[in-house]
């Protein structure tokens, strides 16, 4: 499907990241879902490193 075709139909948007993108869409009555995404361990580097150790082992 070309990009032009995509914009000729109703959009179903899943937004990940900055919530303002989602809010802009919903304010224009575009259906959207905001994904509550966080980096692993909420960005806590020590915990992320420990998780990494588990995941890199078999």
């Amino acid at each position: 499907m070309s990009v032009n075709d995509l914009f000729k139909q109703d959009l179903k948007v899943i937004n990940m990241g900055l919530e303002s993108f989602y809010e802009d869409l919903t304010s224009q009555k575009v259906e959207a879902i905001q994904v509550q995404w966080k980096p692993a361990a909420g960005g806590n580097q020590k915990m992320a490193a420990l998780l990494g150790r588990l995941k890199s082992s078999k």
Partner: protein
Amino acid sequence: MQFIEEANKKVLEIIQNAQPTLVGMGIAKDVVPGMHKHLIMHAGPPITWDRMSGPLRGAVIGGLIYEGLADSPEEAEELAASGKIEFDPCHHHQSVGPMAGVVTASMPVFIVENKTEGNFAYCTQNEGLGQVLRFGAYGPQVIEHLKWMEKTLYPILKEALEIHGPIDLKNLIAQSIQMGDEVHNRNKATTSLFIREMASSIVKTKSSKEDQIKVFDFLNSNDHFALNLSMPASKATMDPAGKVKHSSVVYTMARNGTDFGIRVAALGDRWFTAPAEIIDGLYFPGYGMEDANPDIGDSCITETLGIGGFSMATAPAIVQFVGGTPQDAVNYTTQMYEITLEESNSYKLPPMNFRGAPTGIDIRLVIETQILPVINTGIAHKKAGIGQVGAGVVNPPMKCFEDAFEAYVGLLDQEGLLE
């Protein structure tokens, strides 16, 4: 990692196959392992007298007066501080206690056996609401009520249970979950089913009709009576899980009013603690957060199993009581599936389209998602004896999980299991 998945599979089999059964009643000193005249068991992780919060201190004072070890609150405080009394968590004695969780030698307890694994769990009889020991009250009427529970309620229930035979608590809880109980803050259905189950056996006891009426009136007036059955049922279910090597599943969460503590299967009996939180809930008129004691009680053993706050969706009748809406309750339960490994094969939640309760909290998932377990709980006044001042939803401190996770990875590393 394959060996972690295998260990967790074993833990989940233990949890899913458990058969907690009420098999009888006894006096704590006769049946609870390690109980003696100078031992006071309490809720949560280990704590010394000098660090105990108001409600726990009050309950200790009441316990010493109840046992006849002290004649006045002043004498009880002196004795408690003297070093002559041993304090130890209920959890170290296969027991659990709501709120302050104080258990002393002469108190009657329910005996719950997990028929699958053969282990036992113990819990006192629930006292009801108002001026009660578990909120730290120790006045003469509290002691008098405890004595009535020991001398009248206990012998009748014990005899009635002997007449009736064992009660399958898994079945009882599974039914009550279909009837709007999450068995932590709503126990009305479970209590009702228990009364229905026991009624004819109570009438068949050798006790007087007058005492039987008092027992029925008390059970009927106490919507939380069955909390002291769902708690040992959860404890009996979870304890064997704590013996599985390398499992990352949490098998204990408990609070003593000062600290919150968790235990993880792979790490055995080791507690990971952090300061207990003040609960942001709905306070009774005239009370606010400034009156609240930090989180207290062993009752979150229900959440550890996956019921209680984890199954809030099934108990819309209490969501306002803990300051939320039915949709909030569904959201809490939905979120708990993110940090658990399976769905219960027995505790099915109607509002979740009969999905099983979220079961098996994995510390790896808590750390990765940063989603903390949800606990719904009563709030005790920080001063001994005032009682319940509200209810709400609370989370354990993340530090418990971070410290436990660090120790878990450290253990695996030490054993040469990590690359």
